[in-house]
């Protein structure tokens, strides 16, 4: 994977949406704190739609909005 990851397409994290403010550590991406799961899903969907991006749901319950 080492070489493959350096090939196009490159991935860019556009947003990170979490329910836990302890996990907000900074970075270049937009980081949003949602109040509940429903709001989290809506936030993710809106950002992804606006940026024409894809969504990754992490096992921790947080969401990443990424663009290929």
């Amino acid at each position, binding site marked *: 994977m080492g070489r493959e990851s350096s*090939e196009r397409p490159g991935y860019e994290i556009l947003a990170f949406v979490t329910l836990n403010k302890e996990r907000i550590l900074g970075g270049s991406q937009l980081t949003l704190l949602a109040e509940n799961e429903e709001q989290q899903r809506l936030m*993710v*969907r809106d950002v992804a739609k606006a940026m024409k991006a*894809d*969504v*990754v*749901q992490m096992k921790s319950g947080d*969401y990443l909005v990424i663009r290929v």
Partner: protein
Amino acid sequence: MREGMISSEHIVMIITAICVGTLARILTVKEDFRQYPSYPNGYMIHLVTGFVAAALGAVAIPALMTKNFVAVTFLTLAIQQFRDVRKSERESLKDVENTEYAFRGDAYIDGIAKTFEARNYFSLIVSFLTALTIQIVDSESKLINIISGTIAGAVGFYILKRFSKGKTIGDIAEVEEGKIEVKGSELFVDGMYVTNQLGTENAATLFKNEGMAVVIYPHEEHFRIALDNFGQRQAALFEATRALGVKRYHFTRKDYEKGRIVVTLVPIIKDKDKLIEAVKKTPLLESTKKSHAVMKTNLVGKE
């Protein structure tokens, strides 16, 4: 023959050789239709460069016969011209990379560009062979000269075509339909993890209902060297997306243990056979061929 004037024999030789050489290019452009987005203008460009290549091959023999040895050095110009064909082809394909459904990838572009350069040599060699045969036969009858030259050109073309014919993924691997499973935001094909990018409900539903996948099973272990190559997988993905279109999402993934390769996407046209055919017919890239067995070329036209 008057001094400084070209003889009628040479005119017949040059015209025949140019026609046969250009025809060789026309036939190969047609065969290449799948590899190249051959818009009318793209077609035109390659026919004209093929004509020029044929003309260069055609005049070499008359130039030698009239002791015009210096004139033969223009063949070096031909080499330069063909390199430019490769360069312009590469640039043009790279320019459209961002507008395609999936990237062709640099390896595939390099392969296509090389093919286009080689096809110009076809024209040159075929027209040269035609002219040479006409010169050797040197019959009183122009018709016999033309026929013998054409036959020699056709035989040369056939051998060159077989020699340069590359293999495809279908030659070294089985391509079968894969079963798609979506677990949460994760996508699996035949039990093989592909991606976790289906984070929204829409994405998961879309893939579950409309997604398609094929799995490539290499015939031999050493074929994995070529198939696992990122450029090769990208080329297969590109061909799949171009054959069916892409509604949303396309991925490839390799399985390290068994050497399986997954190509999956949500296509516009849901046609399983077309998808399998597109992946099977993806050319095996020259730059990825490493195995000795794979590198066997059809030198004398054997299958």
